[in-house]
């Protein structure tokens, strides 16, 4: 509603025009106009600056101190809320149009300023300006509330992301799996910029069974995240009971079909690792095919065919089983790993991923950190999907924690059987292998642990164990793999082989070499060794080896036995008899090693190579 009395700011330098306009306005009975006339822009702006308020301005664009369309802009700047009617000459209709475009509410043509025309123009300008202002106020309020809403959504997204991270197994818990379940588990998880639908997790089932799952919900954002929480909650409820993955997927699917909106589903992998039975049993619904590595580095991909969860109430799931012996490793990953683009625009794909993962595989685990670094170097970033990578390695049959082990920060593999995993203990992440003998590990030489702490390797076996697994050969391979460098590998090989053989045969079994001088003696010698190996008192004596890299390219190899010892100095002095059939071992060591020395009455041999 217009008020009955309107204040008009008339800005016009031509006095005749101004006077005609004033007279016209004053003749209008209703509304009544109160007119303030100014002859220049500066004076008009001066009025506004002094705080004078007008209901409308009638503005001539060509004034002594301002010409053209910028006159309008300057007056608008002085009072943005002021409705403005522009006066133009009839010579230039284009300028009137332009004035309307840049914010004047109406225009009058000089000479066509009858009462009705002017009154209508003023009324229209005022109501249009009010409408504009109102629209602007509404849009400002909307913008502000949208910004607030966006901020709230961002905060909620951040919270949901944090909660999603909270669902992941803690590093502490996974660390305990080493001891309690013989599993080395490591992982990398990074959601894409939005919160996504990926999750992996694990649960302890009965006995030595451990459940691992990974799923990926369709879509992104809060909806997908909510589904992640739903499924995680369902799986956590089942937790310990999961020993039949297919039956579990069947139940989960039934629940999710009723729960999920149409078109939402989850690909899933659910596996149960049984460390006692050395098996992996799994069931799946269209998840990326995990890679199963053998200790020796061979690999195959697991069959994960099956309907994703939540699609069909009649979906059927099947169990599949694979051997998962000590040294095996299972690699789980999300589809971001295979579907990310490499240079050239093609997707990385399963085969290229498998050969990339293989490079970071060692018996019992995958170097996830190294793998992810390589992956990020290879693919285009940022990724548009969540990235998950999990390595599950079967280390060894779990044993009760031993005090001797818990003090060591360099992990050692302890096992009471299965000498075929000696190799696993000699490869990273382990720093050595310790056989649990008749006295547990209480009789292990502390030097073994010290060597591991110093970044070296150690091996502590019974004589029978060392004999059965060809300890010298295994160690020789492990040493060259682990320490590398420009070392004298032939010398290392000979020193390990001679010293370990001496420690087993003389130190451990107490068999004398002199027997080997004749063929009959050789028979006797062989019989004596067999007898020693079947005599528990001798066969269980420890033979221990430490290998510690020294500054430069040297290594120190120390071999310990539990025999009667021997006169090192005298043996070293004795010249080998030409053509002799024994007595060369120490001579060989003396020739290839930089130094050789003996301690503990000949029971410890220290060699620098």
């Amino acid at each position, binding site marked *: 509603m217009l008020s009955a009395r309107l204040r008009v700011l008339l800005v016009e330098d031509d006095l005749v025009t101004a006077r005609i306009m004033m007279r016209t306005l004053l003749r209008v009975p209703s509304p009544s106009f109160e007119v303030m006339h100014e002859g220049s822009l500066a004076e008009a702006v001066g009025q506004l600056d002094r705080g004078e308020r007008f209901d409308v301005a009638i503005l001539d664009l060509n004034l002594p101190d301002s010409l053209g369309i910028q006159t309008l802009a300057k007056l608008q700047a002085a009072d943005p809320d002021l409705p403005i009617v522009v006066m133009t000459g009839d010579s230039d209709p284009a300028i009137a149009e332009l004035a309307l475009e840049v914010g004047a509410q109406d225009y009058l043509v000089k000479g066509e300023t009858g009462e009705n025309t002017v009154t209508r123009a003023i009324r229209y300008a005022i109501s249009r300006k009010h409408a504009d202002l109102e629209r602007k106020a509404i849009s400002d309020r909307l913008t502000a509330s949208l910004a607030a809403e966006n901020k709230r959504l961002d905060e909620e997204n951040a919270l949901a992301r944090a909660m999603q991270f909270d669902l992941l197994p803690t590093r502490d818990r996974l660390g305990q799996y080493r001891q309690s379940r013989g599993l080395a588990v490591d992982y990398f998880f990074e959601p894409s910029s939005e919160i996504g639908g990926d999750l992996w997790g694990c649960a302890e089932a009965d006995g030595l069974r451990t459940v691992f799952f990974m799923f990926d919900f369709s879509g992104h954002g809060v909806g997908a995240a909510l589904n992640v929480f739903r499924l995680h909650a369902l799986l956590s409820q089942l937790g310990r009971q999961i020993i039949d993955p297919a039956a579990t997927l069947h139940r989960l699917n039934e629940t999710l079909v009723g729960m999920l909106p149409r078109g939402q589903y989850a690909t899933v992998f659910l596996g149960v690792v049984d460390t006692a039975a050395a098996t992996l049993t799994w069931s799946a619904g269209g998840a990326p095919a995990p890679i199963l590595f053998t200790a020796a580095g061979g690999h195959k991909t697991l069959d994960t065919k099956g309907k994703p969860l939540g699609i069909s109430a009649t979906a059927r799931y099947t169990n599949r089983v694979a051997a998962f012996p000590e040294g095996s490793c299972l690699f789980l990953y999300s589809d971001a790993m295979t579907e990310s683009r490499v240079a050239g625009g093609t997707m990385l794909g399963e085969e290229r991923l498998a050969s990339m993962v293989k490079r970071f595989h060692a018996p019992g685990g995958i170097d996830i950190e190294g793998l992810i670094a390589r992956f990020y170097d290879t693919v285009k970033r940022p990724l548009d999907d969540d990235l998950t990578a999990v390595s599950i390695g079967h280390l060894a049959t779990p044993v009760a924690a031993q005090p001797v082990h818990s003090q060591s920060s360099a992990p050692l593999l302890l096992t009471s059987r299965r000498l075929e995993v000696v190799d696993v203990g000699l490869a990273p992440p382990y720093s050595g292998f310790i056989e649990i003998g008749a006295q547990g590990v209480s009789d292990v030489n502390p030097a073994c642990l010290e060597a591991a702490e110093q970044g070296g390797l150690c091996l502590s076996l019974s004589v029978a164990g060392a*004999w059965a697994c060809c300890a010298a050969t295994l160690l020789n391979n492990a040493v060259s793999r682990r320490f590398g460098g420009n070392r004298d590998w032939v010398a290392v090989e*000979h020193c390990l082989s001679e010293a370990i*053989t001496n420690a087993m045969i003389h130190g451990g079994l107490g068999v004398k070499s002199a027997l080997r001088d004749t063929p009959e003696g*050789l028979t006797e010698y062989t019989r004596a060794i067999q007898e020693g190996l079947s005599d528990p008192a001798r066969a269980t004596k420890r033979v221990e080896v430490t290998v510690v890299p020294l500054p430069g390219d040297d290594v120190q190899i120390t071999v310990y036995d539990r025999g009667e010892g021997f006169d090192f100095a005298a043996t070293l002095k004795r010249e080998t008899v030409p053509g002799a059939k024994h007595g060369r071992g120490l001579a060989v060591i003396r020739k290839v090693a930089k130094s050789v020395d003996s301690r503990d009455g000949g029971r410890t041999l220290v060699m620098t190579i």
Partner: protein
Amino acid sequence: MNFQYDEDASGITVRMTGDLNFAANSEFRQVLARLQAAKGRHVTFDLGGVPHIDSVGLGLLYIAKEEISGSRIRLKSPQASIMKMLELTEAEADFDIVR
């Protein structure tokens, strides 16, 4: 440790595969028995398939040498690590080494 024998009028060649070490001595006795039967002929040990030898294994070669009393034994195609052992123990004086 595996042994294969090639025999002709001029002599006998024993082709070995596997490590010739502390664990080989029981199997080696069959080689000795075979050499007994071939006494007086040239004996060649083909070491091309032997990745590693230790001093016990070398001792076995010396026992063989003594068993065939007198005639020299030829060691054929030793790998690098074995050649090193033969050099270290100055076995060239006692055996004919053919690379």
